[in-house]
């Protein structure tokens, strides 16, 4: 079908075009306790097609896109391309160009054995340190081979093949007459059994502690420590503000040379893009528009150095060759994790759903498990919520030198936000 679509696009009158052929082979396993609820296989293919038309001597560029099924007929495909060209007339944006071919044929491929990866995951889940009082309620395992081929009218024709895996785990902990659950969704390339065991063992421990919590008191303002995956939200606020589209839209005023905060009394953050992070689910040599992905420093010691983004918004911002980054590393912490856990603070390891609003920096979430540290006294707490805004908290935030990876994010293992408002549940 691909050749037919290319042929139709070349004859269509489009000034430029792009095709992304996406193929996925996947295996899935769903377990209740350790019994198999269901197993599933999938074989999927689609073609994402985008056409471009230039207007007013190239000052404006119209575009429109569609997804085509692999069994689309030649006539249907031709009709769809004609519709897209008609639509493109009405969505004219300031002109930009598609990525040029650099002559390199990125044929990144891997020998992906769905059976072997599935076996590793199933084995890892079945050998966790479960006890009579802390165990797995249920879990789901997803293993896929993703094959992404990108072609455009400038001659790019590149293919990436990579594994994408996901595990959803629900943990129970119980004592006499009382049971609680905790939830995790892990995404990765393939199975890192040791890491999975470590993360899920931690979750089982959290489950045990959740059973002996007291209601979170009204703490007013207190330092809050993040040491689990909720911290990704905090660093994604930085990443979002570095995106070319966000800057063009005026949501972010960050530009090279600007400090991320007017006052910086805490640690100075460094943010980098990474082409490869070990076992990330997004390790590919090129992005979804065919641009080469590379390591790039976006913020160095609290000072913005660069931004990144799609071809369209990067050109609007005058970035030259940029790319859509997927993997990020954050560093710059001045203290160890242990040093950050000093004094009076609330370490929250489980939220119902912690969120940072990327638009305005407001953050909030209900506490499912926290540890209130007051000198030598540590009290597990639950209930209530936290609120604040990154606009203010960024000035004094501190984070550890040690890092921890959550799929596409390598971030400080421990982050401490100063004077966060904690509403108790009493």
């Amino acid at each position, binding site marked *: 079908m691909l050749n037919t679509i290319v042929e139709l696009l070349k004859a269509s009158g489009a000034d430029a075009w792009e095709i992304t052929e996406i193929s996925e082979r996947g295996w899935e396993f769903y377990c209740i306790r350790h019994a198999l609820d269901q197993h599933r*296989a999938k074989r999927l293919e689609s073609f994402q097609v985008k056409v471009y038309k230039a207007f007013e001597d190239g000052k404006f560029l119209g575009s429109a896109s569609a997804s085509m099924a692999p069994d689309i007929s030649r006539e249907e495909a031709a009709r769809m391309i004609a519709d897209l060209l008609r639509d493109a007339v009405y969505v004219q*944006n300031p002109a930009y160009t598609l990525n040029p071919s650099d002559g390199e044929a990125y044929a990144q491929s891997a020998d992906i054995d769905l*059976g072997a990866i599935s076996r590793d995951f199933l084995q890892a889940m079945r050998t966790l340190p479960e006890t009579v009082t802390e165990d797995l309620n249920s879990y789901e395992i997803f293993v896929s081979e993703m094959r992404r081929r990108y072609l455009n009218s400038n001659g790019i024709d590149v293919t990436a093949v990579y594994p994408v895996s996901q595990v959803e785990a629900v943990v129970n902990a119980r004592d006499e007459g009382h049971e609680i659950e905790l939830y995790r969704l892990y995404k990765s390339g393939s199975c890192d059994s040791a890491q999975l065991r470590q993360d899920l063992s931690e979750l089982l421990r959290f489950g045990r502690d959740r059973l002996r919590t007291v209601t979170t008191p*009204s703490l007013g303002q207190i330092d809050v420590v993040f040491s689990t995956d909720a911290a990704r939200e905090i660093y994604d606020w930085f990443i979002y503000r570095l995106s070319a*589209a966000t800057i063009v839209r005026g949501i972010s005023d960050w530009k090279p040379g600007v400090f991320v905060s007017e006052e910086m009394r805490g640690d100075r953050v460094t943010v980098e893009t990474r082409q490869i992070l070990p076992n990330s689910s997004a390790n590919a040599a090129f992005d979804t528009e065919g641009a080469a992905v590379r390591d790039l420093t976006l913020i160095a010691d609290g000072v913005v150095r660069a931004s990144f983004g799609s071809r369209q918004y990067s050109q609007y911002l005058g970035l030259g060759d940029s790319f859509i980054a997927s993997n990020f590393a954050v560093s710059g912490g001045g203290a160890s994790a242990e040093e950050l856990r000093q004094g009076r603070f609330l370490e929250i390891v489980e939220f119902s759903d912690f969120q940072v609003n990327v638009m305005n920096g407001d953050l909030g979430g209900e506490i499912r498990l926290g540890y209130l540290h007051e000198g030598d006294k540590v009290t597990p707490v639950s209930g209530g919520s936290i609120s604040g805004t990154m606009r203010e908290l960024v000035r004094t935030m501190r984070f550890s030198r040690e890092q921890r990876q959550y799929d596409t994010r390598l971030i400080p293992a421990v982050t401490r936000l100063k004077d966060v408002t904690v509403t108790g549940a009493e």
Partner: protein
Amino acid sequence: MKAPFSPYLSSLAPGLKQLIADLAKDYDSVSALSTDSVGFSILISQHGKSVSRENLTTERGTVIRVRRDGQYAEAALTGFDPTRAGETAAWIREELNGQLAVLSELGVETYDTPATPDSPAELFVEMETEQLPENADIPALIERMSALSDRGMAEGKDMLDCMLRASSTHISKMFLTEKRDLRQSYVYSEGSVMTMASRDGRNEADYEAVSGRRGPELFDELEEKIGTALRVTEELLNAERVVPGEYDCITAPDVTGLIAHEAFGHGVEMDMFVKGRALGAEYINQRVGSDLVTMHEGALCAEDVTSYAFDDEGTLAGDVTEIDHGILKTGICDVLSALRLGSAPTGNGKRENFAHKVYTRMTNTVFDSGESTLEDMIASIRHGYLLEGMESGMEDPKHWGIQCLLQRGYEISDGKLTGKVVSPLVMTGYVPDLLGSVSMLSRDRKVFGSGYCGKGHKEWVKVADGGPYLKVKARLG
């Protein structure tokens, strides 16, 4: 006009029936769901426009479910060739047997589940719509949306953008077994206005949406949302922080819908009963709310984005009374969970798309109306807030904890709105306490279908929820 059923799916039917017959030699409970849903999405912003002949619910593919030795399995594929059903059957056998080899090697036991009854049924439903997305006048729509975006920019202060979105989908689904042949076609649409402004380094945005089981004619309603979005954005730019604490509150219908969804939507999804993940199982026929609280769930209990004729397992749509005057009566259920629990499916087996597994999912989740007026409700509060603007929610069915991230609260003092706005808000609480505190409900109600719902943090499906204004006691932070 009727939304016509997909000719593409009709052309697959003979081959799928052949495939089902072939697989029935080795498996029982063989069924097929095929989908062919077309549509579009448009985004108009001051900083870029886009149009696509697809959206989050357009899809074309087939999923086959089989059972053998008490074990259910599925295979999902694109490009099913009805003239080569035998090849597809061979691929399904090979893949599923390959998986069973790995499972057997590891000694994984089966969660034994009875066979699915296959009673004869035929259904062919083409629902009414004014327009079809595939025939929509996209250029005219883009021009109208662009004009509205420009108007928003001109009428607002310190505007960053006025973004409009529109998407419309013509859904066709076909469910086949040896004895059942169900086919449905309907159209749903959703649109939104998002106004963004920045003042003194503070960014704020408001999102106002329209939705319905209607065609692109729905987007005429976007115009009236511009003024609301601009007013709310201005209010947010001047909003203050709430003093944390427990307050008398009135929830606007969108917040009421969020409570319905998070409190007794997820809490009574009966696949969670099978896993022992929901407290609701232990509270059937017990009081979970005040006598004023009645709540319905089902594709038939409102007409919105997820009001279908049958679900993704071929169960006909229903209308379940989950809570009747404060008493929890029942939950909602997919086919396999019903088989495991010995109950009946309720028409709530849904997939993100054909390639995803079925879970018990919500459709329309709605509180019944009451007898009060909003004015009476405001007048009854000495100090509290009128809560509007739902952003997101999260449930804890095991504990009946609830978290609602809300956009804003309008202060009420001595029975009157003071004009003071607080934002953002985190509303938390224990569901029976929250619903037990319901003391007044308004006469009118609204249903909102612009959102997606996840199971955990994945499996996104369309849902709608709503109800009247509720007076409750809630903890705000």
